[in-house]
């Protein structure tokens, strides 16, 4: 048995890693704001954040395709600034994945921040800690399980992305041909052997990751009794 082309696997891991890192950076402030705010727009922002959960990926993909098109304002602006189009590019795929996986980052983080409550943050404030200091030294360490869950879910969810990629990225080897697309293509061409290998890799990888997360979560609870 020969291995199929593993290019789509590496591309998928690359995309998932970039998406996860960027989403943790952008999603953390959003999740923190949602967990603390008493603003009236909170439900609207929450709904927007959760939208990718219920929207068919093709709908999200369709709107993004329209938005990314060089003839649109945003797409045209992007072409003028970077010289590249967003459609059918890796960058476009990253942006699409970030939107698609946003709830998988924001919701676990928001839940983790909310479960900490106000009281430890008040205690830190009374120990002369500034808001940023309080976040870094109290909220973030106490929410470390939330970060772990968010990172793993985002990563795993991006691995399985299909519909959005198909709409926005197409199927360009080395650029936008991710593993789920490759599997689909193998099945379409009745190349079940290669489809089996890629599918098995994805299955084993996802399962192993989840087992690791649950093990770590069990072994290192917050405030562990070392």
């Amino acid at each position: 048995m020969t291995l199929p082309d593993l290019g789509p696997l590496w591309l998928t891991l690359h995309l998932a890693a970039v998406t996860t890192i960027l989403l943790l950076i952008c999603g953390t402030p959003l999740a923190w704001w949602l967990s603390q705010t008493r603003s009236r727009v909170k439900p609207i922002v929450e709904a927007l954040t959760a939208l990718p959960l219920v929207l068919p990926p093709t709908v999200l993909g369709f709107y993004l395709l329209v938005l990314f098109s060089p003839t649109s304002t945003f797409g045209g602006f992007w072409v003028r600034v970077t010289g590249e189009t967003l459609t059918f590019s890796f960058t476009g795929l990253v942006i699409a994945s970030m939107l698609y996986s946003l709830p998988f980052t924001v919701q676990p983080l928001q839940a983790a921040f909310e479960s900490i409550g106000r009281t430890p943050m008040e205690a830190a404030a009374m120990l002369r800690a500034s808001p940023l200091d309080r976040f870094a030294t109290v909220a973030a360490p106490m929410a470390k399980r939330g970060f772990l869950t968010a990172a793993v879910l985002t990563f795993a969810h991006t691995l399985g992305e299909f519909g959005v990629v198909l709409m926005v990225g197409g199927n360009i080897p080395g650029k936008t041909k991710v593993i789920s697309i490759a599997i689909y293509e193998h099945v379409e061409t009745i190349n079940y052997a290669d489809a089996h290998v890629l599918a098995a890799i994805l299955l084993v990888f996802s399962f192993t990751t989840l087992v690791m997360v649950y093990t770590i979560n069990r072994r290192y609870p917050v405030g562990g009794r070392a």
Partner: protein
Amino acid sequence: MLNVDITLNYKDFALNIAQSFPASGVTALFGRSGSGKSTLLRVIAGLELNATGRIAWGDDVWQDARHRTPPHKRGLGYVFQDTRLFPHLTVAQNLSYADKRAQNHPGPSMDDVITALDLAPLLPRHPATLSGGEQSRCAIGRALLTRPRMLLMDEPLAALDATRKAEILPYLERLRDNIGTPILYVSHQMAEVTRLANHLMLIDKGQITHAGPLETLLADPATAPALGARDVGAVITATLTAQDSDGLSRLTCATGPIYLPHIDAPLGARLRIRILAQDVIIARTAPTGLSALNILPATVTSLHPDGASTLVQLHAGTDQILARITTRSATALALAPGTPCFAILKTAAVAPAHIGDQPNLVPHTKL
């Protein structure tokens, strides 16, 4: 001096406070649960964002119509009722969290605090593994290490049983006498308050009803309704002069000796003793053939009848004593202001929890 003039309105509760708080000694805020005492501490700390009005520490305005200093810049220490130690940090890390952020402020060192509160054996442990009393000590230590201008303590002993309380109180007395930091101490336990405080403020339904030096306020019959019948009682000051072989301690107060069950304190110690009004009996003539050992000559200052019972204020030398007797007895004894009489105090009636060191008002900087 801390000046507070604030209003805070909630649906079923309003806090209206216009009061100056002394910048020395221990000021106790005493009131029932729900009276607003904890909320007042939160307002002073800047944690209640809905409070309106003005708060200033000397010339330093913390809150007025245009400006609000955030809590972490007010330089206050706060001991929360539920300790709020950080669960993800050890005791040592909890202490250094405060210490690191207060490097530029004068006050006790890490070693001073660890020694004063006996924290050394607890340092490597996580808060979840500590007993309630140990957690309280750590929380108090952590608050001290912020080297605050004022320490706010919100019922730091409320979660502890009587034994644990008795363990912590001596630490608090030591802190009061050895650090210059003023303390605002919230409690609904009068025994605790009389042991610790120099100043007393009574708070009821979101308003301060009485404020003044503790001895004066407790001897004032006007505060009786706010305290509740069981908690009415003046404090007297006495010096421990002898430990008798039969297990009694002999103390000298303004009008003579009194005897109390053994008090564990060095000879010469100045003690403050709380005498509940319900434990005092009044006689017009010096009684004989009576089991009570403590018979103090006194003079009636005023009478305050309230239905079947009457609160009698007496002065015995420089001390004030309150006695609660029946209105019928007050009439039968023909008590009136100026009447000489004897205040009889049963030796065993004074609970150990009601005896504490007389607060030392000279502030020291070292623990």
